[in-house]
């Protein structure tokens, strides 16, 4: 599944970058995230509960910052597993705009869902994923703009 979008954030680019590169900060915006464990600057592990319809699963997700070019571009890879389900994703973020803001973030994500969640949730998966991505960015923007 391919997703992409653009978000306008009324905050300086450096601050947006910093927020996005901080697993604890950005992790707090991930829907269903229960814990974040930072392994090193480029590797962290998240535990998250994801539900589609009546199916829900607790994922352990290994995330790697595959590429970073401060303060413009980052590529994040994720590989998550739950009993009977798996998710593999690559996300690209590109930040643009004046240093003082507002910052424009163009993002795209290639997400592969496997197993029960994909089989049973097939009809709802795209809608649910869209909604979850929307919630994540709403949260990121709200937190950055608030403070």
């Amino acid at each position, binding site marked *: 599944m391919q997703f992409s979008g653009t978000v306008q954030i009324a905050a300086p680019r450096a601050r947006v970058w910093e927020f996005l590169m901080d697993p604890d900060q950005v992790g707090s915006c991930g829907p269903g995230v229960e814990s974040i464990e930072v392994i090193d600057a480029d590797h962290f592990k998240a535990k998250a509960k994801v539900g589609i319809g009546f199916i829900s699963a607790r994922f352990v997700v290994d995330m790697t910052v595959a590429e970073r070019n401060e303060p413009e571009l980052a590529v994040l890879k994720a590989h998550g597993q739950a009993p009977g389900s798996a998710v593999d994703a690559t996300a690209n973020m590109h930040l643009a705009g004046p240093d003082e803001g507002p910052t424009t973030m163009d993002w795209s994500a290639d997400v*592969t869902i*496997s197993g029960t969640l994909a*089989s049973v949730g097939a009809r709802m998966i795209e809608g649910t994923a869209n909604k979850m991505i929307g919630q994540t960015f709403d949260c990121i923007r709200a937190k950055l703009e608030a403070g």
Partner: protein
Amino acid sequence: MTTEAQAPTTTEEVGGMGHSKKRKEDPRFIRGQGEYIEDVVLPNMVWMDIVRTPYAHAKIKSIDASEALKMPGVLAVITGKDLEAAGLHWMPTLAGDKQMVLPVDEVMYQSQEVAAVIAETRYQAADAITAVYVDYEPLPVIVDPYKALEPDAPVLRPDRGPDKQHNRIWHWESGDRAATDAALAASDKVVPIDVYIPRIHVASIETCGCIADYDPVRAHLDFHVTSQAPHVYRTVISLVSGIPESSIRVKTHDIGGGFGGKVPVYPGYVIAIVASLTLGRPVKWIEDRSENLQADSFARDYHVHAELGLTNDGTITGLRVKTLADHGYADAAADPSKYPAGLFNVITGSYDMPQAFVEVDAAYTNKPPGGVAYRCSFRVTEAVHTIERLVDEAARVVGMDPAAFRMKNFIRKDQFPYHTPTGWDYDSGDYHTALQKALDMIGYDELRREQAEKRARGELMGIGISSFTEIVGAGPSHDFDIIGIKMFDSAEIRVHPTGSAILRLGVQSQGQGHETTFAQIVAEELGIPMSKVMVEEGDTDTAPYGLGTYASRSTPTAGAATAIAARKIKEKTRLLAAHLLECSPDDLEWTPGQWNVKGSPDRFKTIAELAFAAYTNHPAGMEAGLEATDYYDPPNLTFPFGSYICVVDIDKGTGQVKVRRFVAIDDCGNIINPMIVDGQIHGGLTMGLAPALYEEISYDENGNNLAGTFMDYLLPTALETPAWETGKTITPSPHHPLGAKGVGESATVGAPPAIANAVVDALAHLGVTNVDIPITPQKVWRILHEKGVV
């Protein structure tokens, strides 16, 4: 000679052939007192549940079971590495390929078994499978069999050796290629069709399951299982495990539907046996519904391109067929050894076909293995669907009515026995009579008038015909075997001193009513009332060896064996009667249930008297007792046939197809129990409606199964099912001892093309030439929009 009915020769009480006796098994079923595998509970029994992969293709980097092993009640976790140590991580399939019991390095389809957890209770096992952590590295997935055969496709089965580093499993041909090419080249017209017969699942209401009960003290394995072929299981288990066949007892119980899905030996069975060997306790494993739909053997999945040659007057000149079969990651079909594509080359159907050539390629993909014959005799459904769709198209191309086109090209009854260009010898048939009866019964001409009126008003109504020929009763030993075992079947009859009897069979009922039908055969032959004939199947310690029930083979093989065994007993009672009546055996004649002295109607001995004498007063030199066994090797297959006509109405707003009427004329030769035959046809028609309109196991591009629940895999219920209108003709099989042919699958095979033809007929004036099954509202709605109808 074709007739419309056959008169019973026995009384209602005796209940031989032709009596609609109520089923002896039903009192326990309708009271909920059947004993299915789930009902069997053994002392000290533990449970198994299976960890399955979410990925359709991935490398296994590691399996960590440490957390699971700490959970309450967990006794063991079994992985592929454990089995590898014993050489049990792969097992042979019935099709001569091999499949994994548990993977060591790679998983090959979504929901494949990865590890098994054994625990004291089912809940503990189910909880613990979520605590087995498997680390995967995803690999490229091949879902499309055409892509699998591309030269740069990843090789899915590198284990096959250096000369087979590709995904083509096999190539199979039948018929004369050059003669067929020449016949088509010389034809006035060549009509092509491309049909996809989708992957479907038998979806029996009872899923698969087993209890493996190895007793280390006796060194003996009791294996309770939902199997259509218990003896073959015993042989396979012995070959795989090394346990002597004498120390294995396979026991089936009541079976809640098989339809071909309970012929293969599944990995779960082998793992359960290993678990029981390891723990020394009975281990039970029952699939849940999603496991059943996602991991058990599938059926169909044939991509067919076919061309029919014609003269301008609508005479068929030849048939050329090229097919790609998607077998998943292993060929686990249960076809006879010499027939990797089953009996698909019966595709010349009911037609006088001068030439034909059929070729099939099979490909590996990242899907579950299989290719089972879902209520059909080895790929006959695929064959019949193709030829019946193609014949309809051909009629349209030459401007003939599809009924008239069939009548013109049918094999005539004076041509039987008929040798087909792909090598079959049809034993008997009368196709014109069956189709005419169907046309009369449904009022064909009136329906065509109604259709013309409706079309003029813009309404969509279609009429579809299917005139199928089945090929069942596998099969003659010179041609038919499974893993080398010839496809005979067997019966053993013992008549007790007081005149009742037990009949033991090598076949296995899954709901077909064997306890009734086979008792009626004994009643017919010996005059013992069917109520006094107990039929026993499914215990390999007592039943004679047989190949089991599938492919409509029970009546053609075990039914014949029963009749022959009964006739052996009858011959012995003749000698007993001669002894008791003090006459020569030649002076005796049989009337149902007794031997009479010719010309002296008051001098006779009944079967009950003779049975008593066999134990109490047998002559010197004769063995005591009254029993006989027969292993029947059929001289030919049998060829049931029929003509079905379907009327559909299509809702232009929603694309919904409604089957308004469906007439089914079946000819299965002589009939043993007319009510059971009707029941088989009603059930078969519903299971033909299902793939025509509802059922498909589809996959997304990552190999995720999108029909893993009954929410997505749609089984028709009574609401979707029309009121079937059935009729029959009777053309006895000339070589079967009872003149019977088998009927379990005719309707499943014959119904889908009748429905598809009706839908195409409703849309043909829009330029539609094919709609692949399942014909969902979405597909029809899209066509209607593309054609600008709505």
